[in-house]
C-alpha cells in the first residue's frame, strides 16, 4: 500500500542543536500511528515536519504523492487548513469564542459561511458527550471538556490526517482515556489517518502501531512475540 504521508531521511536542527538526524517513517491511509520517545528525542519536531509546520534542513516529506517540504509557505498553509487537523496538549481554544464557534473555526477559516459552519459543528457536541456546552467559553469548561472541544475542532473539517501532540498530556487518566477513545473511534469512522505523539504507553495502546524516536531517528519496533488471544485478560 502507498503511504499517505512519509518522512524520508529528515534532518532538522535548531541552531547548533540537532533534533532529527535522518528520521524516516511512512504512515498508511487510515492508520493510527503512535510516535513515542523520551523527552527531547525529536518526536514533536518530527510531527511538525510531517505537518508542514517546520521545513526540514535535509530530507523529504511527502503527502499524497506530493512533495511537501519544497512547497511555499502559502500552499503549505492551505494544506494545513484544508486537509490536516490538529490537536495539541492543552486545547488552545480561542477564549473569546464559544465552544461551538471554536469547533466551527476551521470551517470558517476555509470560507464556509457562519450558519452552515455552526450547523456542521453542532453534531460533534452530541457525539463527544458535550451536549449543552455549545455556548460556553473555554474558561467555563473543564480540562477534559476543553480537550474534547479541541478534538471536535480538529476533526470537524474531516481532515485526511489528524496530528495530535500529547492530546491527553494535561488530563487525568480517566479524562485522557475518554479523549483517546473518542479520538480513535471518530478517526476509524471517518477513515482519518492519525499521527499521535505521546510519551504515555497507555495512550499509545490506542494506536494501531507505534514507532520510537531516539536521538532524532525513528526505530520501528519488531520482534513482538505472538500475543494471547483477545478476551483473556487475567
Amino acid at each position, binding site marked *: 500500500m502507498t503511504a499517505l504521508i512519509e518522512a524520508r531521511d529528515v534532518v532538522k536542527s535548531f541552531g547548533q542543536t540537532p533534533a532529527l538526524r535522518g528520521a524516516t517513517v511512512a504512515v498508511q491511509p487510515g492508520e493510527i500511528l503512535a510516535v513515542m520517545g523520551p523527552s527531547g528525542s525529536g518526536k514533536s519536531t518530527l510531527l511538525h515536519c510531517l505537518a508542514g509546520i517546520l521545513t526540514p534542513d535535509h530530507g523529504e516529506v511527502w503527502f499524497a504523492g506530493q512533495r511537501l517540504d519544497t512547497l511555499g509557505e502559502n500552499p503549505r498553509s492551505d494544506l494545513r487548513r484544508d486537509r490536516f487537523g490538529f490537536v495539541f496538549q492543552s486545547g488552545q481554544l480561542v477564549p473569546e469564542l464559544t465552544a461551538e464557534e471554536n469547533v466551527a473555526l476551521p470551517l470558517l477559516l476555509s470560507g464556509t459561511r457562519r450558519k452552515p459552519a455552526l450547523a456542521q459543528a453542532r453534531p460533534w457536541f452530541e457525539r463527544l458527550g458535550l451536549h449543552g456546552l455549545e455556548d460556553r467559553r473555554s474558561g467555563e469548561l473543564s480540562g477534559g471538556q476543553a480537550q474534547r472541544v479541541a478534538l471536535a475542532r480538529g476533526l470537524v473539517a474531516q481532515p485526511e490526517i489528524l496530528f495530535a501532540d500529547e492530546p491527553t498530556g494535561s488530563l487525568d487518566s480517566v479524562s485522557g482515556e475518554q479523549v483517546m477513545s473518542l479520538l480513535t473511534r471518530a478517526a476509524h469512522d471517518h477513515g482519518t489517518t492519525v499521527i499521535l505523539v505521546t510519551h504515555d504507553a497507555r495512550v499509545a495502546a490506542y494506536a494501531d502501531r507505534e514507532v520510537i524516536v531516539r536521538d532524532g531517528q525513528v526505530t520501528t519496533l519488531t520482534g513482538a512475540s505472538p*500475543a494471547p488471544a483477545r478476551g483473556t485478560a*487475567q
Partner: protein
Amino acid sequence: MSVPLTLLGLLEREPSHGYDLKRDYDTYFGRGKPLPYGQVYATLSRLARDGKAIAGPAEHGEGPDRKTYTITPAGIEDVQHWLAEPIPPEPHLQTVLFTKVVLAIMLGRPADQYLDAQRAAHLQRMRELTDLKEHGDLMDTLLADHGLYHLEADLRWIDHTAARLDALAKAVQQ
C-alpha cells in the same frame, strides 16, 4: 486465583448447585477461561469432606450432580479470613527480563534489541487490553486496567534500563 475459596465465597450468598456456581464463576471470574465441570464437582466434594460445605441429598434432574451445597460456619470463617488477608506484594527483584539483560551484557549481545523486542510485545498486549476495554463491560475494563497498569510499570522499567545500559555494562564488567 483460589478456585476453592472463590466457590466457597459464592456459596456464602446462598445454598447452590454446582451448575449455578460454575455459571457465576465463569461470568464474574472466568473471563475466557471457564471452569471445567469436573473441577467444580471435585472441589465441592473436597470442601464437603473438609467440613467447609455440606452436600444435600441428590435430587432428580438433568446433569450428573443435583446436590445443593450449603456453606458451614468453618467455610464462612475461611472466606472471611481469605478476603481480609492482603495479597503479598511481589517484589519482582529477580525477573526473567532482568536476568536476560544482565546476561546479554555479560555475553556482549545486544541487550537494547532484546529490550525493544520486549517493549513491542508489551505494547502489543496493551493494545489488546485497550481493545478489550473499548468493547467490553465494566468487568472487562477493570480487569484490563489491572493488566495495563502492570504492563505500564514494566515498560517504565524497560525505558529506565535502556537508558542505563552503558552504566549497567560497566557495573557488570567490574
